[in-house]
């Protein structure tokens, strides 16, 4: 078994182009040793379980690089650390990464590491889904303990999954909204007994099992909710593989291994998650060896760090969409020809080469190339065509240069991206004012529908095509302000809503794929969003860190339970 695993790991390294000379030597030696041992050793009796994690190897055996080891401290460079741990609010990627490792959900991502593979059992040991796809009955795992010693039961699950919408809950605060991922279509949630949770939906939802491992669906200790009430936002107690040792709002979170985790203690002893909003400071910390795990590195440093002996770079599938939002509430982006001209003016190859340092792909539409429902037809529309762009500028009937502003966040690669977009747009008859905003102001302006052209990204936190295209659903802030289609284009918005509802409710895969094709065609037709690239987010880590599930990490979901340090 182990040699097959090592071989698979070796092949993964090759596939992901992360094979350094050292890793090659190490894995080749490991494979050779395994092959020799396999040839000499007697066959294991059928059904024999593999050695427990962390167990001492048999005398004389070589410790292979692939044998997980307990211990070590992971110093994690997050892009920020928010002021609160409240899972019902957006507090930045750093906090969501903390939640994913402190928390546990009813379901969890597939242990294959492929982000879009089916969801696995976690706190729910098993489940059944009714024939109409509307009723989910979950059998709750026994013997699970929260970090404060309380026992998990069905009531605790129901409490956690309703606290964000229940004004009577002691921990409720106004403004929680992240729960919409799993409450929007939910009719009821009940606990008929201590080991069973039943969730009824208004309509079938093909993505519902995925939605249950959204960070907002973390299961929190009811004892802690009663004790800390609204201050659960600084005292988050769940039943995940790590527990919070210290939280310094805005700066750092320290996690330690939870010995009583239901699946066994994780390998790493301690994780320090530190915020580095400044990419230069993050790089300096990596160079100085102050951090050994950086899932949000500047793309510019990736090539050099790839060649380093001490570090390694991993990159999974391109799960993140980078796009321009055309706010149809305002001129001139309410003009169809203007939106089409913007689309044809942009040279995506330059975006991928100059801004993403090659870590991206030519986009088609909102569904990525490794995701269910991908339609490659849009790739032709994403190719730069200056003649078509100029033609649409002329057809728009607006006097040239057509003036508008491009609003973007003044961090990461956005300023450089904005300059590139401006340059391309000005070459075909636009005059673009760059409107750099800090993160809070950006969202305020964009969600209020006060931007013209805005620029943003969408990750695949819920591994289903609905997670991305749902931005256009009329109740969503994106449809209200980012593109404004809900108000400015009611007919289009209605049609989109119908297709989105049909897509997420359809359980037949072939029919579902067809619906998502139609949705993508509809996006390309009216172009409320202009795609820039599919982004392959890299992760930089010390060479001795192993077994990171890269699928989730490619979309900012980082699970460290099975990660270990050699």
């Amino acid at each position: 078994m182990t040699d097959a695993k090592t071989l698979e790991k070796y092949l993964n390294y090759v596939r992901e182009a992360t094979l350094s000379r050292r890793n090659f030597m190490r894995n080749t030696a490991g494979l050779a040793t395994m092959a020799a041992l396999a040839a000499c050793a007697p066959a294991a009796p059928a059904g024999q379980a593999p050695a427990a994690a962390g167990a001492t190897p048999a005398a004389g055996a070589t410790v292979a690089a692939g044998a997980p080891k307990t211990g070590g401290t992971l110093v994690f460079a997050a892009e920020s650390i928010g002021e609160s741990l409240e899972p019902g609010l957006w507090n930045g990627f750093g906090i969501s990464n903390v939640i994913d490792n402190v928390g546990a959900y009813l379901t969890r991502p597939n242990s294959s590491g492929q982000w879009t593979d089916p969801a696995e059992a976690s706190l729910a040991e098993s489940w059944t889904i009714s024939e109409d796809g509307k009723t989910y009955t979950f059998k709750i795992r026994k013997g699970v303990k929260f970090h404060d010693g309380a026992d998990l039961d069905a009531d605790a699950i129901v409490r956690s999954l309703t606290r964000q919408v229940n004004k009577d809950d002691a921990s409720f605060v106004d403004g929680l909204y992240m729960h919409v991922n799993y409450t929007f279509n939910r009719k009821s949630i009940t606990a008929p007994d201590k080991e069973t949770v039943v969730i009824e939906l208004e309509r079938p939802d093909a993505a519902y099992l995925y939605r249950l491992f959204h960070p907002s669906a973390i299961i929190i200790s009811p004892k802690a909710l009663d004790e800390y009430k609204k201050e659960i936002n600084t005292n988050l107690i769940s039943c995940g593989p790590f527990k919070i040792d210290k939280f310094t709002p805005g700066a750092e979170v320290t996690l330690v291994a939870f010995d009583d985790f239901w699946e066994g203690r994780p390998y790493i002893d301690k994780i320090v998650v530190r915020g580095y909003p400044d990419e230069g400071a993050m790089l300096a910390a990596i160079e100085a060896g102050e951090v050994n795990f950086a899932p949000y590195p500047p793309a510019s440093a990736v090539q050099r760090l790839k060649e380093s002996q001490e570090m390694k770079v991993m990159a999974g599938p391109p799960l993140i969409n980078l796009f321009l939002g055309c706010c149809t509430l305002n001129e001139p982006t309410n003009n169809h020809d203007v939106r089409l001209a913007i689309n044809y003016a942009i040279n995506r190859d330059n975006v991928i080469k100059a801004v993403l340092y090659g870590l991206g792909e030519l986009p088609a539409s909102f569904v990525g190339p490794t995701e269910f429902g991908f339609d490659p037809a849009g790739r032709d529309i994403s190719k730069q065509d200056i003649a078509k762009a100029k033609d649409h500028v002329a057809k728009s009937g607006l006097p040239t240069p057509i003036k508008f502003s491009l609003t973007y966040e003044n961090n990461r690669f956005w300023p450089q991206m904005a300059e590139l977009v401006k340059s391309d747009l000005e070459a075909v008859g636009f005059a673009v004012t760059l409107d750099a905003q800090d993160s809070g102001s950006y969202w305020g302006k964009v969600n209020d529908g006060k931007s013209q052209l805005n620029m943003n990204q969408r990750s695949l936190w819920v591994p289903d095509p609905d997670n991305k295209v749902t931005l256009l659903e009329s109740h969503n802030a994106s449809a209200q302000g980012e593109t404004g289609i809900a108000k400015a284009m009611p007919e289009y918005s209605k049609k989109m809503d119908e297709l989105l509802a049909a897509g997420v409710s359809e359980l037949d895969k072939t029919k579902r794929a067809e619906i998502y094709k139609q949705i993508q065609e509809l996006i390309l037709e009216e172009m409320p969003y202009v795609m820039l690239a599919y982004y392959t987010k890299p992760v930089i880590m010390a060479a001795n860190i192993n077994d990171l599930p890269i699928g989730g990490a490619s979309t900012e979901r980082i699970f460290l339970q099975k990660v270990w340090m050699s």
Partner: protein
Amino acid sequence: MSVAKLKDSNHLVTATSLSKRPTLGRRLTALRQKYELALLGGIFFALVVLGTIFAPWLSPYDPIKQDIPSRLLTPSAIHWFGTDESGRDNFTRVLYGGRPILTTGISSVLLALLIGMGIGTAAGYRGGLLDDLLMRAMDIMLSFPTILLAILIVASLGTGLINTILAIAFSLIPTFARLVRSIVITLVREQYVTAAHAVGTSDWQIIAKHIFPNMIPPIIVQATATLAIAISYSSALSFLGLGVEPPRPDWGLMVSQGQRLIFDAIYIPFFPGLAITLTVLSVNYIGDGLRDHLDPTLRNR
């Protein structure tokens, strides 16, 4: 002149004095030695100013136009300071990048100087309640860290060159107002001012003819020192994204955009950073030299 011909000591003294009178060359050498750093600073600052003015003639490259195939080229005979992430010539951008910094620095100091002089003169000359009110207002402004005040103003007014000038100028007003007030308070007690009052000279005439000329030397020294600060503030605001709009080159913005490349292409943030440092240093040296020359207490040291 032979010593034998000089019989008495008076003759000797006169002759020695004559022989020690410095020639023009010696005086220039002495000045150069005394103000060596100021001279160097002046030459460098002049070069910076000329470089930014004549940038289009000094470089064949466009500072804004992107050239992706030429991106991240290391310094060479073709691209002296290399090229940036968008393939633009870094030397050209450093030349052009001085324009907003110098414009902002000089304009904001002049504006602050004008307003500060007005406030300081009014407060020092009138005294009483007006003095109290104006100086308390200046105290309030001084209670904010200057750069924070500038950031606050730019954040409220919006980014852009004009707003940056206004923000920096506003934050520098108290420096000039307080200095001018202290000078005016000293000057109004002088006998020639009292005499001018006695013969019925108007306040405006007294200020224009007797007070203003006497405040010029310290103000020039203060303005030069403040120019260095204004250039630093301008760079800082651009670094924070509150200065000129990209892709226009600006030293602070270039350092900011290049900081993440510090380990991969250090030449991108290094040269604009060096330009800021040397320009501020040169202005400080000019200020020191002017102070040494214009301050009678320091002149003969």
